[in-house]
């Protein structure tokens, strides 16, 4: 019996440990301690912009094309090609684009953080920070979280614009079953500014989870280069699970009770 309970116990303990770590990092940002290292925060923000923005936008654009193409052919097959905008609007804003953002954040930013912090851990750089009298968790983790909070809303909003454009190109220019005006009328009818805000909240919760998971696995990496590789893989698995959990919960919370669909009376 004890053996059967060992695994769940281990998971519970790990969850508690991750939760405590995340709480400490969020507390460092919330409590303003991270502002002692605002220069480092800006440096991390710069790195995020330069190294990750284009690839995140690229995936969002491509999945915007996918939403447009799927919507156009699906609704044409059901005799309602003029309503391709409904599919594109919901697919882009509510589901696929937040997921695309989460996937690329996990793959590019999350794993990058694990690899960087893990390498710092095994080469004693984190210990070096500590013995210089610098709180390494604030310096390395809280600065990355604040940088993500500063940069990523704009990255996401611009990326969503790119995805909207991609869907328009796919539906109107490529497939061409509906006119530009007809598509846009329906597309904008099925979304409003609160939807955009909800979508942004969904994406930012995903981004926060991804950065924190990356920091946890990187900061606590051990066992040399193999250990860093294992930590990177573990973080990717957990991040993908969290991205989908957050996506599902976000949809339930924001649109489960009120789908905001102007159909019927």
């Amino acid at each position, binding site marked *: 019996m004890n053996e059967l309970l060992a695994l769940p116990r281990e998971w519970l303990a790990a969850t508690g440990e991750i939760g405590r770590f995340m709480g400490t990092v969020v507390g460092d940002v919330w409590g303003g301690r991270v502002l002692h290292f605002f220069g480092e925060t800006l440096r991390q923000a710069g790195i995020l912009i330069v190294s990750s923005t284009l690839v995140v936008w690229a995936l969002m654009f491509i999945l915007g094309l996918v939403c447009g193409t799927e919507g156009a052919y699906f609704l044409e097959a059901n005799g309602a090609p003029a309503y391709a905008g409904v599919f594109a609007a919901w697919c882009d804003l509510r589901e696929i684009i937040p997921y695309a953002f989460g996937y690329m954040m996990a793959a590019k930013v999350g794993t990058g953080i694990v690899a960087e912090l893990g390498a710092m851990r095994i080469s004693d750089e984190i210990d*070096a920070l*500590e013995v*210089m009298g*610098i709180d390494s968790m604030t310096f390395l983790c809280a600065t990355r979280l604040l940088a993500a909070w500063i940069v990523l809303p704009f990255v996401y909003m611009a990326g969503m614009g790119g995805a909207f454009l991609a869907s328009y190109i796919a539906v109107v220019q490529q497939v061409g079953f509906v006119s530009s005006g007809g598509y846009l009328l329906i597309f904008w009818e099925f979304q409003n500014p609160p939807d955009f805000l909800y979508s942004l909240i969904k994406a930012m919760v995903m981004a926060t989870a991804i950065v924190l998971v990356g920091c946890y696995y990187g900061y606590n990496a051990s066992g040399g280069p193999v250990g860093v590789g294992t930590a990177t893989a573990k973080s990717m698995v957990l991040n993908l699970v969290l991205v989908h959990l957050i996506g599902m919960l976000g949809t339930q919370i924001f649109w489960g009770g009120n789908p905001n669909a102007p159909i019927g009376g």
Partner: protein
Amino acid sequence: MAVVKEEEFDWHTGQNRPAGVPDAIQFIDVHKSFGSNEVLRGLNMGLPEGKVSMIIGPSGTGKSVCIKHIVGLMYPDSGDVVVAGQSIPSLPDAELFELRKKFGVLFQDGALFGSLNLYDNVAFPLRQHTEKGEDEIAEIVNRRLGEVGLGDANEKMPNELSGGMRKRAGFARSLVLEPEIVLFDEPDSGLDPVRTALLCELIKEVHAENGGTYVVITHDIMSARRVAEYIAVLWRGRIVEAGPSQELFESENAFVRQFLSGESSGPLGME
């Protein structure tokens, strides 16, 4: 806690010959285990103020663990570590971070920050902990890099440096805040004999110029002969003998004699 077989400590007289000055660092009955492996097994050791002390002993005997206890990166399972009169395990985080500003630590591979060039690595502690302007920082950094012979390598990244250069750069970085205590974790590891000798000379010169308590971890006897003013011989998690280096080199203790002369016959075997 693992069972202690007293015959393992037949050679451990624990004798601490006086160095004539008070201790800057004290280990008091320190025990530390990693799983079932008990590394420190009742360590009592004092390292004198203002001297270059060496903790020497066979590999895997707990030398690096000692350094981590001194700077509070590890805490003892039991016992106490006292540095500059303050009990490290009892210090709150804020006070520990403050105390750490008095330390300079040279890690085995230098532990330079891979994302910063050499200049920025050495300038890092000054930018974080002082209000000095960039001109003053540049003056200090260039002086320290010059002292370790890296005056013309400012712009190089750590991955462009050899192992010896990284150690020297780490040494320069550990000195910029003019620490009261400087700790060296195996500064000679991975270096050829000539560069080891040069690094030892450098440690002596810098200590003569700046003063302070230096603690060097090593298992290299030549380094001990060149640099040490005080030696503590550590084996199986306890001190075998400690004292001024000249007295230790003349010790009658069979283990100390074997280790300090590098002979194959004696109490220390391959086990």
